[in-house]
């Protein structure tokens, strides 16, 4: 099977999506971030330029525009770039897009995709390192998609655009260069289906986004100590596949959840609650969370390295849960 870089798979997805459906428009365009690969994005402009617009710095305005355009029959993908910028657009995402289908009694569909890069990026500091997916999970009506591999980003982006629900596509700049298998003629990946990224019998590590890659590295190190970790990647937060996680817990009896949202009311908190409610009798140890610490993200690199769900913190949590 061919191997692609994450950014290549993502670009391929956008190319195929734009070719397949004239209703898809791109609002803003840092889908490959400001990475060295951003020139690849120019290829898209040549082919689909009339369906790509660059608005002024008005997140509230252009996220509302994307939402309204979706209500009127288009299927826009709006790029917020840095995840923290969604806070500028919050009323349109949380109060309008999330609520429209329900508030209208099913009359209004909002097939919009809000794309963003979340998390610790190396020197982003407090205002450029946000991971808003925890808060967004608390807004009923939004789908939340969070890939961690080249195959997943391609398959999930296609499903996000095909979905008639407003969808938050949570990406991470640190994933852009990783490589992985992507089949030719791949199929869209359905939502609500978790993926076992590594099988193991000793501890279940549930991880999301870039933290999946960190967990895999931790797993490799732990394997040398004779600890076999099973890494489960939910791939979508809404809808959420609890069943696959519970199956894993049935086998391992121990859970560590690693995620980049801040600890309080974060993604790990919700997953822990769900596992505890439905799988309490399977557990032999309390569930452990490895989240970004509850502090505004500091600028200086050693400080930043200290607060995130690092390989070291994940490994320590795994060992602690076996102790």
């Amino acid at each position, binding site marked *: 099977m061919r191997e692609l870089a994450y950014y290549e798979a993502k670009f391929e997805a956008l190319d195929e999506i734009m070719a397949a459906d004239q209703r898809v428009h791109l609002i803003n365009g840092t889908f490959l971030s400001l990475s060295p690969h951003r020139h690849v994005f120019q290829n898209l402009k040549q082919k689909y330029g009339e369906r790509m617009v660059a608005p002024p710095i008005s997140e509230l305005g252009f996220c509302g525009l994307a939402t309204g355009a979706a209500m009127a029959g288009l299927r826009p993908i709006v790029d917020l770039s840095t995840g923290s910028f969604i806070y500028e657009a919050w009323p349109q995402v949380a109060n309008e897009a999330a609520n429209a289908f329900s508030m209208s009694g099913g009359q209004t569909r909002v097939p919009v995709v809000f794309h963003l890069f979340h998390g610790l990026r190396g020197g982003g500091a407090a205002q450029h390192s946000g991971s808003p997916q925890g808060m967004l999970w608390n807004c*009923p009506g939004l789908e939340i998609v969070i890939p961690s591999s080249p195959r997943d980003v391609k398959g999930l982006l296609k499903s996000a655009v095909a979905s008639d629900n407003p969808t938050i596509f949570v990406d991470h700049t640190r994933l852009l260069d990783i490589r992985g298998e992507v089949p030719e003629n791949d199929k869209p990946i359905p939502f609500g289906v978790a993926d076992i990224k590594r099988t193991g019998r000793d501890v279940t590590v549930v991880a999301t986004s870039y933290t999946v890659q960190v967990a895999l590295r931790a797993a490799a190190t732990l394997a040398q100590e004779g600890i076999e970790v099973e890494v489960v990647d939910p791939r979508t937060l809404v809808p959420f596949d609890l069943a696959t996680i519970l199956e894993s817990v049935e086998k391992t009896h121990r859970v560590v959840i690693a995620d980049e949202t801040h600890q309080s009311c974060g993604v790990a908190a919700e997953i822990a609650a769900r596992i505890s409610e439905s799988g309490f009798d399977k557990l032999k140890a309390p569930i452990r969370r490895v989240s970004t610490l509850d502090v505004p993200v500091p600028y200086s690199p050693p400080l930043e390295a200290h607060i995130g769900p690092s390989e070291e913190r994940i490994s320590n949590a795994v060992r602690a849960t076996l102790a």
Partner: protein
Amino acid sequence: MVSRNNKTSELVEVFRRMWLIRAFEEKASLLYAERQIAGLLHLSIGQEAVAVGACSLLRKNDYVFGGHRSHGHAIACGADIDKLMAELAGRATGYCGGKGGSMHIVAKETGFITATGVVGGTIPLALGAAFAAKERKNGQLAVVFFGDGAGQAGAFHESLNIASLWKLPVIFVCENNGYAEFTPLSAHTKIEYLAQYAETYGIVATTVDGNDLFAVREVMARAIKKCRNNKGPVFVECLTHRMRGHYEGDPAKYRELSQLAEWKKQDPIVRVERVLRKKKLATSQELEAIEAETRALVEKAAEFALTSPLPAAEEIVRDVMT
């Protein structure tokens, strides 16, 4: 002899639509006082000329957006008042199955896309609908109603700027009734007319007497023509007055009684009636009949609403996601 031509019947129909709004809002007020309607109720009594003046000239496939005071906008678009009253009463037979209520009316089949409970919330949405309309190149346009209070919201300014920059076919209709919630406009901004904001963004703007149906229609006809010919956006400010408080139950002590008396003289329905009588386009009997007929329709709507079932508990999880 009363001349019966298309224009006459159109005017009489427009007048009838204004009465339908008036009758509906007055009945809603009574039902609210009887606690048949929950939550907050914002009535547009006195502002009928803006809603009807604007919407009577639109096509069915144009996109209309409102705010929290939008029963009149929906009715002006042709909404079914039975389903509208049922929605206010939180019934399963309401437009939104009881999920939305007064501030979130959606009557999609009429072109009334959505109202919103957040001041300025639909202004960016209208931008998006106009964006979609422009792509289709078929002359569709978007209209968004909002009050003078929205003129100070970030969403308003971002939207005006983008609409102007991208020449979107959207008509911004500002119902300037002089009060943003409980304080006069002068407590919210130094500018006197919101049209001034629009001019800053390079948008053609006009301020008219919003209680003069004909003035509203005239300015809207020009705005619509511009937008259909891809020469939008346009800003239309309609000076008007809401005859009730900000919400039902608001004693509106912040208003001078004399001010209210002045505005009552400018009642938009009375003014149209005067024109119809003067130009002999309708007889007294016909005019009285219109009031009676619309009130009867509203009574029927209220009865439909109050005898409709409330939504079942299972409805909570329906239509959250497709």
